[in-house]
Every structure is written in structure tokens, then in C-alpha cells.
């Protein structure tokens, strides 16, 4: 998803904060809804949330970097989450990550493709352990994966 311009980032944040009634304890939910809407947390949104909820910016950033649900950088159109849970690990998840990165030609630790189409993230257990190894692409769950099936699966999103 593309970089969000400042006005939209601020307005979006305002709408979410108002929806929860400007409550300090809604911070995590507010950030989740902003993340959901924009695909990441634009800096302008983070500043606005800090102002509206009267929480220091450092504290908001602390929360945003503590929890893995949040990204402070724009992510690709399709977010590929590779489950690194124990069952998936034992059934070959590390090779799945390598295969996906190879297919997308991601080098040097980059997680997002140049054309911003895909971001690859290793995530904690998704709870689909019986179908290990598992990846999700957006809301779609793909289980019982093998490295040779990666190309076919990703083609549906290209």
C-alpha cells in the first residue's frame, strides 16, 4: 500500500480517535485501526494520536514498536506472513521463507519488493498448526506448503 499523504493521515487518525471517544486506554485499538486503514502507521497519524489522546509521542512510539502488529514503514500491497511457530518450524518453515524471498528476488534483508507489491514478514504462531507450514497472504490462509508450490501460490496475487 502506498505512502499516505499528511492530511489524509491526520484526518484518518482523528476519525478513529473520535470513534473510541478520546480515551487514553484506547491507544492500542486506535493504532490497530489506523494500521488496518493505511497498511502502516504514518508518522503524521502517530503525532495526531499523541496530541488527541494527550500521550507523549515517545510513549506512543514505545507502544508502536513494542507490539508486532504495527509497522512504521509502508508495506507492500500484499502482506505475506510466514508462520514461524513450532509446528511450522518442525515442518520446514525456514525453507518456505527462503523460497519466497528467492521467488520475489528479495536480497540483503529487504522485506518489501521494489514495486511495493509484496512484503514478507516472519510472524508468530497463527494457530493453524495442524496444516503446517502455513503462510497468510492478506486474509487468505495457505497451508501444507512446500517450496515448489510457492510460485503457483504467489502467481494468484501478481
Amino acid at each position, binding site marked *: 500500500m502506498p505512502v499516505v499523504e499528511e492530511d489524509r493521515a491526520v484526518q484518518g487518525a482523528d476519525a478513529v480517535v473520535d470513534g473510541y471517544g478520546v480515551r487514553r486506554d484506547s491507544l492500542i485499538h486506535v493504532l490497530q485501526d489506523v494500521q488496518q486503514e493505511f497498511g502502516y502507521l504514518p508518522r503524521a497519524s502517530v503525532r495526531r494520536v499523541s496530541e488527541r489522546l494527550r500521550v507523549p509521542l515517545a510513549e506512543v512510539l514505545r507502544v508502536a514498536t513494542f507490539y508486532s502488529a504495527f509497522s512504521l514503514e509502508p508495506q507492500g500491497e500484499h502482506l505475506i506472513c510466514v508462520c514461524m511457530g513450532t509446528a511450522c518450524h518442525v515442518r520446514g518453515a525456514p525453507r518456505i521463507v527462503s523460497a519466497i524471498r528467492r521467488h520475489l528476488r528479495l536480497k540483503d534483508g529487504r522485506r518489501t519488493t521494489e514495486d511495493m507489491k509484496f512484503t514478507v514478514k516472519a510472524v508468530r504462531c497463527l494457530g493453524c498448526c495442524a496444516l503446517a507450514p502455513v503462510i497468510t497472504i492478506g486474509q487468505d*490462509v495457505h497451508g501444507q506448503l512446500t517450496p515448489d508450490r510457492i510460485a503457483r501460490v504467489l502467481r494468484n496475487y501478481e
Partner: protein
Amino acid sequence: MAIATSPRIESRQALRELADALKCRAGSKPVVSVCRGTGCTASGSGRTYEALRQAAAELGMHEQVEILGTGCHGLCELGPLVVIRPRGVFYHRVKPEDAREILDKTVGSGELIERLLYKVDGDAIVHEHDIPFYKKQMRIALRLNGLMDPMSIDDYVREGGYQSLAKVLLDYAPEQVIQEISASGLRGRGGGGFPTGRKWASCRKAHGDVKYVLCNGDEGDPGAFMDRSIMEANPHGVLEGMIIGSYAIGAGHGVIYVRHEYPLAVRTLRRAIEQAREVGLLGEDILGSGHCFDIAIARGGGAFVCGESTALMASVEGRVGEPRAKHIHTVESGLWGKPSCLNNVETWANIPVIIERGADWFASIGTEKSKGTKVFSLVGKVKNTGLVEVPMGITLREIIYGIGGGILGDKAFKAVQTGGPSGGCIPAQYLDMPVDFDELTKVGSMMGSGGMIVMDEDSCMVDVARYFLDFLRGESCGKCTPCREGNQRMYEILDRICEGRGAEDDLQLLADIADTVRTTSLCQLGKTAPNPVLSTLGYFRDEYLAHIRDKRCPAGVCRALIRFTIAPDVCTCCGRCARECPVQCIAGKTGKAPAKARKDARTGKKKGRVGEPFRIDQDRCVKCGTCLDVCPAGAVRRA
């Protein structure tokens, strides 16, 4: 269409009458139950469900048969699963194309479809209850999973839901409820195993008018998905348990904390809460008893540490999930500083059944100190992966072989990992041990939330220990030094060992750091972090020594310690490995494989260049394994 739309259920009588009316309406209509849990959905059960509905309409059968989408049936490996009730015919790997035939043959004329039946050693097993995976289970927390639509309060009421709540609110004093739960022997199912009745009693006694009841739906242990299935399949079971608990403790507010990775569970629970409110089972004066209680949902942000009670509560309050030292327990001062009773999803799901069938019944199941059943997620290198609920005291062998069907590919069993990152690996010599809280602790592991990951001869135990430390160093909140620094250092040592750079005194160093982390960490994440290392070091020391002394990984997992070679007689000279190799260390000549060229020459086919089998330069190989992954002929060998 629901019978129970807007009218409040004002009394126990009204609840009973509604249940009777719903049972009557359902009658003996056959039900085609399609699992729409996350596992089967990933295998395509959504399309199967739609195909069945469409076929029912096309065949004019939609009045005579119900197509029901349910929560997780448990045997995820074989999904999409379809069970035709009341007969109980079990079909597996059902595709949309099978829909019409199922309705026409099995529902219409009772005829079975051979290819969809589950087989053991060639023999077909027709009925769900005869399948070994299910036969040996005792389903209490999972009892309603395949029987109802999770989005329907009607279905829950029809199956007897909320009758226990009525019994409690109208027949019991709060202290009696606590006595009943204490007498049942129920212990927390989230990992702590703390006696539930005792926790409730402490919270009831605590000072303050405002109290909270919380549900821990964080389920952070990798490899565990029991709570997910309960929340997705039977949300009202959790709600009913919490309302009963709130009455016993004297709480007016509840929170269900659901981890960020479970959006379907959030949706299902939200719907259930709305429905319960609509009919007055949440809110003011529930069932005319005077008790008032409501529930909110809090979503996690993605942090394993938020499964810890004080971190969870901090997260609900909108703060980072940093635990605090528990000199004062959360039953005295928890959420917003008020007395709070936090229990796991599975614990709450057991409550209505204990009230319905009695403490004595529950206490008759299980072992002396571990009563009732436990839901396990049986996963890893086992044939039948899925959710299993069994009485405490069953042996590991019965679970892994009797229910799980044994090891995938009939390979050798090596270990079973229980208790998540707080647990340990249990080797083959303990396969006949009974499974309960105390027995698992005795062998250096623990029950944990119920993850049971089976490992075979191809799993490296040093790699498993490294895996868990990698997980824990990332999930450590960072507040206390022993956990933050200790887990990082233990990881570094294990990583060195897996990379072939380990030294003999690394093992003593690991043990020393483990001891410090265990005794001085602030919370259970840190305190139990050394368990995977200590248990693998205890049972698989030889494997560690092979990595250190011989620079060898016996299981063939640690990349740096294995050699990749190409079998020249299998290589087809396609050159794909050389093209994909990230360091271009593979050389050869594309063309016809020499053996094929010789054969062709004999039959007169001379066309085409002859290739040369490809070879890996061992000095430059970085052991990434790409060649192994891409070779279409299986010519790459790993030693």
C-alpha cells in the same frame, strides 16, 4: 431464521421453553455439518459449504436438510470435513464437486461414497465416533464444536446452553458456586494449573466493590490453537462460564483479551456478546436474578508476553505489556488496580459443564491431582494432526499413536515438545508416562497451554533449543536484565553451536546462564525460558557433543554442518541449481545427461548436446540449500 429475536429471556422457564421450541423445530431433519474452522477454511471448506447450499437449492432439498457451517471439528489434517448427522457419516477432503453427490446419495438414499470415507489400513470407517482419532477422546470443552453454528445463540440454547447459568443464578449462593468449582478439582488450563476454585475464593474475599473477570485468549504458545477453536466454535460457552464466574466473585465487568492474530475469534465473540445482550443474558438483572454483568473485548497487539496476567492487564489499559513483580496478586489488585480474576478460555469453557453435571462427575475423570480433561493441539511429525481432548492420565503413547496414528512416514519417534517455550522435550523412554500437570513437570517439561509437538529422527534438538531461544529473546519485554540479556546470550551460544563454532565449555556456560535466568527473572517468561535448553541438554547431550566435537548435525538439519553434493548419475544436467545458486558455486554443462545420451545413441537418436553432471564447489558453498529445493530430479544429497 431465529425464533429468539428481540424478546428478552426473563426467566429460567422462558429459557427452557425456548430450548424446547428450538429442538422441536429442528426435529429429526438431517444435518450436513461442514467444518468452517480456520484449518478447514484454509483447505477450501468455504467453497464446499457454498456448493452444498447451492446443490440443496437446485435439488429442491433445502427444506428437508440443513447445511450447517460449524467451528473446528478437530481433525484438521483431513479437511474439509463433513459429517452427516444424526447418522454420523464422516467424509474427509470433501471438494465442492462432491456436494451434489453427497446430497443425492448419502442424504437422499443413505448410500455411502467410498472415496470420501476415511480409511485405516485400507478399511473404511463410516461413522465419526468409530474413527480412532475421535473414539479415544472425551470431549467436554470441545463438546459442541461440530454441532452448532457459532454465530447462532439459538443453536447454543437448543443444545442446553445457559441452563447452567440459570441454575447458578437462581439456585446457588455465590459461595456455593465457588465450593462446587473447588470440589471439582478444576485447575487452570492456560499453563499455570492453579486451582480455579481457590482463585475465585481469593478474588471474592478481596476488598472493593468494583471487580473484574477476565478471559485470557492470548494463546501465544507457538503450536497451540485450542483456545482459538473454542472461541471460534463455541463463543457462548466461554460467555456462560464468565457470567457464572462473575456471579461467584461479585464482578460487574468482564474483558475477553483476544490476540491480534485471531480476527475470526474476535468477530465470533463480538457477535455472541451482541446476541447475549439482545436477549438479556448480559446486562442488567440477568434472568431476573438481580445480577448485572457485561463484557468487552480487548484485542492484543502482537506480543507473547501479554499472555502473562499483569502484562495482559497493562495491554488492556493501553500500555506496553510489561509484567510487574507479583508481590500483590492480581486477584487483589489487577485491572485498573481492582481485584481481577483472570482465567484461560478452556477453563471458562469447562465451567457450564461442571455446573450441569456436578463436581463429583468432573472429579471422577483424570488423576488424583489433575481432574477432568485437557485439550491438546497434536501437531508436528504425526499422521493425524489436530485438536484432541482426553482425560488427564492418558499416556503419551495413546495420544501420539492411538489417536495421532503414529509418526509421519513411519519414521522413528524422537521427542515430544510440550508446554511451549516454557516447556521441554520428552524422549521415547517416557512414552508410557501418564499425562497430567505433575507428571509432566517431573520429567522436565510442563503441561502449558496444551501444545504437543511431535518430533522425529529428522529433528535436531539443538536447533529446537535455538528456535525457542530465538523466539524468547524477541518476545522478552526487556524490563529485567536476566531475561533480556540472558536469553540473548543463550541464543548466541546455541547459534554458534549450530554453526559449527561451539566449544566444550559452552555447555557449562549455558547451564550457568540458565540457572541465573531461572532464579532471577521477574516473570514466568524469563523464569521458564531455560527449560527448552535444559531439557534438551539433559536428554540429548550426545547431539550437542556431536555438533561441538565432530562438527556434525546427526539429524541433518543445521545447514552449516551438512554437505550438499549432487549425485552424478541422477543429475539431468538441466542447470537449474547453477542458475539459482546465490554464490554461483555450481558448475557443469547443460544438455542431455550422459546416461541418457548413451541410451539414445544406441537407439539411433544422436541429436542434442551431451551435458556434464553439475558439481558443487564445497569451498565456496554457503549451505543455503537452494539447490536441494529447486532440483527437479532429486539429485542433491544432504549429508
